């Protein structure tokens, strides 16, 4: 049996998520740089995956071959990912202060060369989903029962390579591949629809042959239901388009362009921590 940390009730998930958000603010403030906006928008998705039972994994051994695989394709939102791994016990809380520091395991974008708990180095957008597709094929070859879950950003969907996966995954009938899109509607240059419009995103994936699920990415019940539904698909890969708010949880950061990537001032740090109490 895989020992599972997970399946916390929704009220507990909310508490976890608040703790993760506090860590994100602390880390980005301490590092002097980072991407708080996307980290905060994806926090609830990560909490639902790692603490709500969305992701099946061994809490003692991240490399247990029976575990679901997780790839953070949108590598820049790794402060939230590191905070989650820390809450799972794979990173000591003290180490989180090393984010983006010289000789740190916690690189500004996740790097498997630096950190054994990172499944796949990412940070250059549009690449993690292809790796996920390879892992899904590997799982089939090995007759594994695990799923491959990839968290992508919406802005990342400008990359052509994402659409190469969109084409290839249904062709190979990979029901074991799940792409969760953090649809916060913003990217580095501003609103996604004002850069290169993505809509109608759901119809596009549907036309490519994916099972498409639309959820509120801050609603744990909706997220958990979608994870279950995704895992019931046998021949179709699933995309979960999780509508989120960039900077979620810190009122003055929500949907503000400045907080895609920034240095947080002491005043901003204190205000944010005050709100996340």
């Amino acid at each position, binding site marked *: 049996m895989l020992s599972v940390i997970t399946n916390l009730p929704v009220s507990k998930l909310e508490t976890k998520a608040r703790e993760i958000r506090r860590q994100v603010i602390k880390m980005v403030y301490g590092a002097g740089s980072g991407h708080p906006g996307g980290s905060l928008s994806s926090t609830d998705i990560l909490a639902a995956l790692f603490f709500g039972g969305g992701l099946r994994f061994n809490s003692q051994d991240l490399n247990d071959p029976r575990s679901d695989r997780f790839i953070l394709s949108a590598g820049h939102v790794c402060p939230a990912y590191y905070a989650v791994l820390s809450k799972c016990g794979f990173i000591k809380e003290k180490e989180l202060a090393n984010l983006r520091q010289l000789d740190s395991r916690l690189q500004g974008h996740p*790097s*498997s*060369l630096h950190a054994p708990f990172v*499944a*796949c*180095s*990412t*940070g*250059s957008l*549009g*690449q*993690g*989903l*292809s*790796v*996920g*597709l*390879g*892992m*899904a*094929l*590997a*799982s089939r*070859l*090995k007759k594994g029962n695990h799923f*491959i879950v990839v968290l992508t950003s919406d802005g990342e969907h400008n990359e*052509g*390579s994402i659409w*190469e*996966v969109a*084409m*290839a995954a249904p*062709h*190979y009938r990979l029901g074991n591949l799940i792409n969760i899109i953090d649809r916060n509607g913003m990217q580095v240059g501003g609103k996604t629809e004002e850069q290169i419009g993505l809509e109608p995103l759901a119809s596009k994936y549907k036309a490519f042959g994916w099972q498409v699920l639309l959820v509120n990415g801050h609603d744990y019940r909706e997220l958990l239901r979608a994870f279950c539904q995704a895992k019931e698909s046998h021949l179709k890969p699933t995309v979960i388009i999780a509508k989120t708010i960039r900077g979620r949880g810190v009122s003055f950061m929500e949907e503000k362009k400045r907080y895609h990537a920034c240095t947080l001032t002491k005043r901003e740090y204190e205000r944010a921590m005050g709100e996340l109490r």
Partner: protein
Amino acid sequence: MFYSQRDAYGEALLELGKQDERILALTADLSSSTRIDKFAKKFPERFFNLGVAEQNAVGVAVGLALEGFIPFLSSFAVFIPGRCFDQIRVSVCQNKANVKLVGSHLGFSNSGDGASAQSVADIGLMRVLPEMVVLSPADANEVRGAVAAMAAYQGPVYMRMSRSKTPLLTRKGKKFRIGQTETMCRGKKLTIVGTGPILAKALAVANRLNAEVINCSTIKPLDTTTIISSVKKTGRVLVLEEHSIFGGLGAAVAEFLSQEYPVPLKIMGIPDVFGESARDPEELYQKYGLTEEKIEEEGVRLIKS
């Protein structure tokens, strides 16, 4: 005796596949051009065509490698690495993924299609990446050995090969050792460091020049020991490759010798051009100065210098 490197590659991969279930063959819709169709037929479940989509194909190979498989991803050298450098930089090398990339149709060997299909920069692209091993076998025999060596080595490897039927220059069955050159003939006046099938042209004139010819089938890591000991003896070096004179083996040798043991040095390769169409590669070698006569001429000039 002539034999095609890509035929040898297809046969070697098939043999390897029989011995090791972890070996997979991947391509971006070039299975017959890269001769992995035999593998595909024998092991359909271990063959993956990702379509004309090289960026994704590289990522897929990484995913399979991270799960313990040994994927050989084959395409044309202009596309892999040319079309997917960043996927190789981040997904392959920054994971130290056990991915084997094979680029066919090196240099001018695809003469007909012209510039867009002629790979003049692949060595340069690959040798600047940390973690990457770069192989450039001299003939079909060496390709067979290289395929086995690639599979045995844990980590990213890129191998380039020719489209043409090229002369057999090395002994069949010889074990290929990554990072080790082979001295093909001894000489005292000049060291010729060459790579790929074009070495045949150097061997043809080596005697007349009293030149030592080193087959540098691993570009990275460079066999600096053999190169420097030969150069200490001859005092001059000519580098020969079917690749741009910038960034390839010539650059690797020059970077090394200019810092460790500076001697007169000449790089012979494809000048700073993209190539063009021709009826056969020989016409391009003539036009761009990659002929036996030219090698001899440059050799004599170096020796006199």
